[in-house]
C-alpha cells in the first residue's frame, strides 16, 4: 500500500466513514495503524529538525543584529573621535600668541623733553612715542597648563629700539589649591588698581593714564609671589597679598634693593557682580607699600646743571578703582559701554639726597614728605559692531611736598624744579575700528598738559593685531 492510499484511508477514517462503506479486514487495520504511527514519528522528527533549524537561524539573526548594533556604535564612536582634536607631537605645545603693533605719532612738543611736572620722575620711560612712524613693542606669549597642579605663562616683549627682549610677565600659578586660593609666583603685573593688569594690546587708549605714569612708572610688574582668595559667595569678592622684590618704581633702586626678604607689598581686594540683565560692575581697593633706597632721578637745579637726586624712605600708595560695563542683555556684539575710573593717593616719607654725584652745589641731604593724588575717568562706547569711540580725562594733583633742605634754607625750591606744585591734566579722544576680534586700528587725539607751560597736541594712529592663540576676554 502506497502512502497516498494510506493517507486517503486515514482521511476517510478521520472523516468517520462507516466500516460498511469501505470494507477492511482487521489485518489491514493493524497494518494501517502501524503505518500511521510510523508516519507520525517520521513527521515529528522532521518538525523537530525544522524547529531546531529555525531556532538556529533565529539565534544567528540575533547575533547579526547585535553585531550590526556594535558596528554602528563603533562607527559613531570613531566619528566622534575623528571629529575631536587632532593629536600628535605638537599637540602638547603651549598656546602661542603674537601681538604686533605700530604707531604714527604727530606731537606738537618734543617727546624727548617729556616730564610730568609736580611729580618725582619714575625710573622707566613714560613719555609719548617717538615722532613719526615707529614700531611698537611686539609681544610674544606662551601659556599652557603644566600639569594638574600648575599653569605657566610667559609673555616677552621685544623692543624695536635696542633690539632687546624683555620678560613682561613670566609666572606659574596653581590650579589645585582649591577653596578659592590661587598662588602665583614669578614676574606678573601687580594687582594694584585696574589698568595695571591690562596688557597693552587690550588698552582702550594708546597710552596709560597719567596717574599710572606718575605713581607706577607706567606699569608695575613685580617679581614676587601673589596669594589670592576668592570668596564662596554669589557676589564676587576676592582678597590678595603680593610680596615682591621692589624692582620698579615706586620701589627702588632700579632692579630692587640688595637685601633678603621683600621690598614691596601689595594688599588688594575686589568686589563685583551683575545689576539687572545688562550691567556688570567691579570695584577694587589696593594698598601698595614699598621702601625704596636711593631711588634716583635727574633734574636740572637752579644753576642749570642736571643733577642726580635720590630718595630713601617709605612710599605708600592707595588705589581705588571702579568699572561699569553695560550692553543690552549683556550681548556686547552690537553695542556696549564701558566706564572706568581710578583714584590714586600716595604719601612718601623719608629723605632726599640732592646732587648725589656732587656735580653742582655739592651733596646735601634733607627730609622729604609728599602727599599726592591723581585720577582719571574714561568711557568707551561701541555704537555699532566693529566701531568704538572713547573719551578720557586725566588729572593729577602734586599736593604738598616739603623738602627739609629747602625749609632749612640750604637749598632753594628752584633747585628742585620738577617738584614745584603743578596740576597736570589731559583730554584724550579716540576712535577705533575692529574688523575682527584680532585686529584694531585706532586714531587718538590728545591735549596733554603734563608739562608746565607747554601743551602737547598729540595725534596718534595705531594698529594692534594679534596672531595665534585666541586672546582672553578679561573683564
Amino acid at each position, binding site marked *: 500500500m502506497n502512502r497516498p492510499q494510506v493517507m486517503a484511508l486515514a482521511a476517510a477514517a478521520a472523516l468517520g466513514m462507516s466500516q460498511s462503506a469501505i470494507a477492511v479486514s482487521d489485518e489491514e487495520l493493524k497494518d494501517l495503524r502501524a503505518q500511521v504511527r510510523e508516519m507520525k514519528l517520521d513527521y515529528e522528527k522532521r518538525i523537530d529538525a525544522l524547529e531546531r533549524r529555525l531556532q538556529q537561524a533565529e539565534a544567528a539573526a540575533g547575533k547579526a543584529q547585535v553585531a550590526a548594533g556594535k558596528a554602528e556604535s563603533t562607527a559613531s564612536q570613531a566619528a566622534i573621535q575623528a571629529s*575631536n582634536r587632532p593629536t600628535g607631537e605638537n599637540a602638547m605645545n603651549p598656546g602661542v600668541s603674537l601681538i604686533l603693533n605700530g604707531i604714527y605719532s604727530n606731537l606738537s612738543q618734543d617727546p624727548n623733553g617729556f616730564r610730568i611736572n609736580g611729580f618725582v620722575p619714575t625710573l622707566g620711560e613714560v613719555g609719548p612715542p617717538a615722532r613719526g612712524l615707529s614700531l611698537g613693542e611686539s609681544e610674544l606669549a606662551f601659556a599652557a597648563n603644566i600639569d594638574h597642579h600648575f599653569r605657566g605663562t610667559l609673555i616677552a616683549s621685544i623692543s624695536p629700539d635696542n633690539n632687546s627682549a624683555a620678560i613682561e610677565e613670566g609666572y606659574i600659578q596653581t590650579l589645585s589649591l582649591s577653596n578659592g586660593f590661587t598662588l602665583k609666583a614669578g614676574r606678573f603685573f601687580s594687582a594694584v588698581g585696574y589698568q595695571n593688569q591690562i596688557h597693552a594690546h587690550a588698552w582702550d587708549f594708546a597710552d596709560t593714564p597719567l596717574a599710572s605714569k606718575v605713581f607706577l612708572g607706567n606699569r608695575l610688574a613685580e617679581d614676587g609671589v601673589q596669594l589670592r582668595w*576668592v570668596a564662596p559667595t554669589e557676589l564676587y569678592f576676592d582678597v590678595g*597679598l603680593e610680596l615682591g622684590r621692589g624692582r620698579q618704581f615706586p620701589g627702588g633702586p632700579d632692579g630692587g634693593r640688595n637685601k633678603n626678604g621683600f621690598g614691596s607689598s601689595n594688599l588688594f581686594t575686589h568686589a563685583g557682580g551683575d545689576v539687572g540683565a545688562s550691567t*556688570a560692575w567691579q570695584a577694587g581697593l589696593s594698598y601698595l607699600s614699598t621702601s625704596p633706597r636711593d631711588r634716583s632721578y635727574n633734574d636740572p637745579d637752579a644753576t642749570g646743571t642736571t643733577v642726580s637726586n635720590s630718595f630713601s624712605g617709605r612710599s605708600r600708595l592707595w588705589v581705588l578703582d571702579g568699572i561699569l560695563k553695560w550692553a543690552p542683555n549683556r550681548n556686547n556684539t552690537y553695542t556696549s559701554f564701558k566706564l572706568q575710573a581710578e583714584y590714586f593717593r600716595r604719601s612718601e616719607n623719608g629723605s632726599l639726597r640732592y646732587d648725589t654725584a656732587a656735580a653742582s652745589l655739592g651733596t646735601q641731604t634733607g627730609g622729604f614728605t609728599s602727599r599726592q593724588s591723581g585720577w582719571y575717568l574714561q568711557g568707551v562706547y561701541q555704537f555699532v559692531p566693529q566701531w568704538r569711540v572713547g573719551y578720557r580725562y586725566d588729572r593729577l594733583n602734586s599736593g604738598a611736598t616739603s623738602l627739609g633742605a629747602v625749609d632749612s634754607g640750604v637749598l632753594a625750591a628752584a633747585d628742585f624744579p620738577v617738584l614745584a606744585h603743578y596740576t597736570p591734566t589731559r583730554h584724550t579722544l579716540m576712535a577705533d575700528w575692529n574688523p575682527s576680534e584680532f585686529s584694531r586700528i585706532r586714531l587718538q587725539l590728545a591735549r596733554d598738559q603734563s608739562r608746565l607751560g607747554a601743551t602737547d597736541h598729540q595725534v596718534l594712529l595705531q594698529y594692534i593685531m594679534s596672531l595665534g592663540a585666541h586672546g582672553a576676554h578679561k573683564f
Partner: protein
Amino acid sequence: MESIFKLVIAVAAALAALPAFAAINVFACEPEWGALAQELAGDGVSVYTGTTALQDPHRIEARPSLIARVRSADLVICTGADLEVGWLPLLLTQSGNAKIQPGSPGFFEASLYAAKIEIPKIVDRSLGDIHPSGNPHIHLDPRNIAKVANELSERLIRLDPANADVYKTRAASFQERWRAAVQRWEQQAARLRGVPIVVYHRDLSYLINWLGLREAGSLEPKPGIPPTPSHLSEIVERMRREPAKAIVYSAYNDPRAAEFLSERARIPAVMLPFTVGGSDRARDLFGLFDDTLARLLATVK
C-alpha cells in the same frame, strides 16, 4: 599692615565656613546644558547658567559674577570645541577651584561626545573666526543631546554615587521621552527636507544637517564677521536667481540684517530660539525643538 592681614584671614575663615546648598552645584556655560542637567538631576542639582540665549557664546567676558559662580561649582558643563575659548580658561584659572579644572570629574565638555561637522580642512583666520575642531554648536541636533545626556548622567553618578538610582531613573525617563519626541519631530519635519534657507551665523548647521535642510548662504561674510552691505547685496542677487524659503537667525543676532534681506528678497525672516530661553515656548529642551520646528514649518506652509 599686619593687622589688615589678620583681618583678611579672619574674614576669609568666616566666609569659607559658609554651608553648601545643594548636592551638586552646576555651572553651565550655555542654557542647553543647564536645562539638560536639570532634566537629568532634578532637585539634585542647583544649576547656574553663565550665558543666556540672547548672548553670543563666543563673546562672553570673564566677568566677576561668573568667576564667583565657578568658584563654588562642583561641575562645569560647557560645549568645548573652542566655543568658550575667550572666557572659560580665565574663569577656570581665576576660580581657585581644583574640582572643575580640565581633566577633573567636575569638568564636562559636551562636544567630546558628538561627531562634529564642518571641521575645517584649512585652519586660517583669513577664513574668519573658525573653530579648528569643527562646528561647536552641536546641541541643535537632538540626537547629540541624547548622546550627551548618556555621558552627563554617568558623570552625575560619578560625582554623587549616593543618588545613583535617582540619576539612572531620571536618565531612563528622559531618554524615553526624548526618543519619542525626536521621532515626532522627524515626522513633523519631513516637509523640511531639501528646503533652502539662509542663515546668519553658521550656528544652525547641526539643525540643518539633522532635518536635511539646505543652507543657501549666510549673512556673515565669514564666521564671526558681521554682515556687510556688499555681502548682503550679493545675497539679495543670489536670492533673485534661486530664492530660499526663509532667512533664519538666532535669538542673539541683531534682526536688522535679516530684515533688510527679507525686505529686498521678499523671503520671510524667521527668528529661532537657538537655545533654551530664546523664546517664550523654548522653556526647556523639548520646548526648544517644538518651537524651532513650528517656526520653520510655518515658512513652508
